[in-house]
């Protein structure tokens, strides 16, 4: 198990009801974190429409996550 801090934004935050939470997760990649939090909070947004950052760096869903990492889950963006 890894200690992962997950931060939620926009509709993900509204859905989770918290800005962030620290979770003990059995995960290898950013995609695993996405799935774990989707199961936990019941979001229906497809992963392919979302983005992820690890420790403030944009990342791929296949990027590995390490114990102590902060994973930022970004729902579909709409700047401009």
């Amino acid at each position: 198990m890894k200690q992962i801090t997950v931060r939620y934004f926009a509709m993900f935050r509204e859905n989770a009801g918290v800005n962030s939470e620290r979770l003990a997760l059995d995960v290898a990649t950013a995609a695993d974190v996405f799935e774990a939090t989707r199961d936990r909070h019941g979001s229906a947004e497809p992963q392919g429409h979302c983005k992820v950052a690890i420790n403030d760096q944009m990342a791929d869903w296949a990027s590995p996550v390490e114990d102590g990492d902060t994973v930022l889950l970004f729902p579909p963006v709409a700047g401009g």
Partner: protein
Amino acid sequence: MITMTSEPINPDALRGQLFDPTAGAYCSFEGWVRNHNEGHEVERLEYEAYEPVAISEGEAILAEARERFGDVRAFCVHRTGMLEIGDCAVWVGVSSPHRDEAFSACRFIIDALKVRLPIWKKEHYTDGDSGWVNCERCAAHA
């Protein structure tokens, strides 16, 4: 340079920062809050940004523009918080020796900002509903 601000954007002041005696062309783009979107009457917009990554991604986009279009100076500013109809939500300005590069770089930058920056837009409709733009199943009107 890219900045995020919760204050009104002042295009004229920003434009002045792009002056350069070698620049013969200036192109700017602004996104304004309009009163409708996909059939819904919009009353106001709320922008949420995650600034640390919005800034670093924005700077990466500006660096890519310089790499692609050469001798261009480019700035942009994005609003956060609650905006009313007619407010400027985003401003992009580019100066360069010739107009081809100014237009191309300005278009490249706004297109990239819209899809790459961690910024979210919640529309508040005149009927009281609201919805996050681009979210398939989360908007009140979806």
